[in-house]
């Protein structure tokens, strides 16, 4: 009897190992690559050259001393935080709109999935054609409200705005759908009770709905922030970091450093810095999320 128990637990353990090992091996490979990438960032590795010298934090020191690097850091954070803030506000408004009893609300909701399912690079190229300053359809529409020849991605002072706009178009539905689910989750009794106590629509929104969906909004913002701080496809597909360095965010800068200038070590160092920016931002958001969630309950 005892023997059987031991045997059973052993076969159980084998089964556990067999089920989990392939996944660990596959993912473990990536972790090795990650460490190797970090090691590279400490060297002067170049593609096509066999000699590699260990440099310590030389690459980092070089970056910290360059104004262009700090421009990239501030572009990355400006891009991500602006985009995510716009997406949160618009997403909230759209979620409220689709949470009404309007006839079309339920019917049209699937349309919101459209921007989310398209490949981001296709989205970028699609908007590039529409943003053409001379013949683009976007400026044709803007002409109706008296704005002529808006330069979009073709000039340095509007390029960042244009790529933020594309990010906002693509990912506002992400917020809208999540906040929509949050609004649906509020029990009708709470809202009814508040209404009985004479709360007006705005009061209802600010006192009950907003605080209750706030944790959802922040969680969505956390995920979007991570992706936007790493955004590569949309910017590569539209401006490739230009004009000049107007949209040269860290990921783009790392790509060109590593794969065009072939300075692998320095490119890896830029990516490590990008990752640190992501990490710090994510930690702040998680703190914020805990705070709002505790306040609700």
């Amino acid at each position, binding site marked *: 009897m005892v023997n059987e128990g031991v045997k059973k637990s052993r*076969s*159980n353990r084998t*089964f*556990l190992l*067999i*089920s*989990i090992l392939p*996944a*660990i091996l596959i*993912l473990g*490979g*990536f972790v090795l*690559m*990650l460490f*190797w*990438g970090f090691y*590279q960032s400490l060297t002067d590795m170049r593609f096509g050259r066999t000699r590699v010298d260990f440099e310590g934090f030389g690459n980092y020191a070089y970056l910290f001393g360059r104004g262009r690097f700090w421009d990239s850091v501030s572009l990355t954070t400006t891009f991500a935080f602006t985009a995510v803030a716009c997406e949160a506000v618009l997403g909230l408004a*759209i979620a409220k709109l689709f949470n*009404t009893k*309007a*006839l*079309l*609300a339920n019917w*049209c909701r*699937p*349309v919101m*999935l*459209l921007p989310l*399912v*398209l*490949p*981001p*690079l*296709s989205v970028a*190229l*699609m*908007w590039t*054609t*529409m943003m053409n300053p*001379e*013949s683009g*359809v976007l400026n*044709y529409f803007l002409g109706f409200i008296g704005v002529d020849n808006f330069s979009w991605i073709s000039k340095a002072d509007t390029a960042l705005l244009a790529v933020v706009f594309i990010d906002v*178009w693509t990912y506002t539905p*992400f917020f809208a*759908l*999540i906040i929509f689910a949050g609004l649906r989750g509020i029990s009708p009794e709470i809202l009814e009770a508040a209404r009985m106590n004479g709360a007006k629509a705005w009061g209802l929104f600010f006192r009950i709905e907003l605080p209750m969906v706030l944790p959802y909004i922040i969680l969505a913002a956390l*995920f979007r922030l991570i992706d936007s701080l*790493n955004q*590569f496809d949309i910017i*590569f597909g539209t401006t490739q970091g230009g004009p000049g360095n107007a949209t040269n965010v860290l*990921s783009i800068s*790392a*790509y060109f450093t*590593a*794969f065009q200038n072939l300075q692998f070590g320095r490119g890896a160092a830029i990516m*490590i810095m*990008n990752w640190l920016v*992501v990490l710090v931002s*994510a930690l702040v958001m998680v703190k914020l999320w805990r705070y709002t969630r505790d306040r609700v309950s």
Partner: protein
Amino acid sequence: MLQGKLTSLVLNILILAVVFVMAFPIVWIVMNSFKEAADINAYPPVFVFDSTLENYKVLFDIADAEATNYGTLKVEFFKPVINSLVISVGAVLLSLVAGVPAGYALARYNFRGKEDLAFFVLGFRFAPVLLVVIPIFQFFQVIGLYDSYLGMIWVYQLITLPMIIWLCRSYVEDIPVEIEEAAAICGAKRPQIMLQVVLPLLRTGLVGASLLVFLLAWHNFALGLILTADKTPVPVALLKLLNPGISFYPVVSAGLVISMIVPIGLIILGQRHLERGLTFGALK
């Protein structure tokens, strides 16, 4: 009463405005893909035009070269479509084979470091893809996996595998454990329980998860850009279309439509799954 009708009218109009903003760009690109080059560059833009299939013919290299505006330029878009399908489907299948048992184990077994492992898997959602790609690029050059399906399918696991494990774990947790206990009492062994009891119950969930993960694989651009030369997936091929330096927008529009047909088809197949997957599936 009148006021109620008015608000409802305004709300419906606002909803239509949102729908217009979301759908118009896509409708516009579809229209462009059927236009002749002259109509695409026309300003003000034309909304009514004589449609042509020429752009698609050039895209798939079935037009008579002399008959097009592009002379002898050759574009072969069949290949990138096949590449994307092979890599994405391959990546989903490998993720299912490796991820479903792992998801099951994470849901049903208690072992030391289990939560750490789950957190490790979730952590891949935050992994800096470009940072991992620089070493992988060199590694692939050395062992000959650069520009190969096998290499791409492995690299895509970075995106697909953690998602499958995570979703599968939450689906298994939704299945009452009593069903498995009952099977165990009847003498079934673990592998048997998993294959014959749990797997059938997971089927709908896994179909949804596979659709979602296929979509993420189809989207990917950076990995193909860096790790392929010939086995390029669709998004990279699209960008290459812009390189000839001539006004190629009509053909690019046709390519964009091809890259979008597959995901839009997936919405029709599994709207419910995707809505949950693209939002909460990622958060849960």
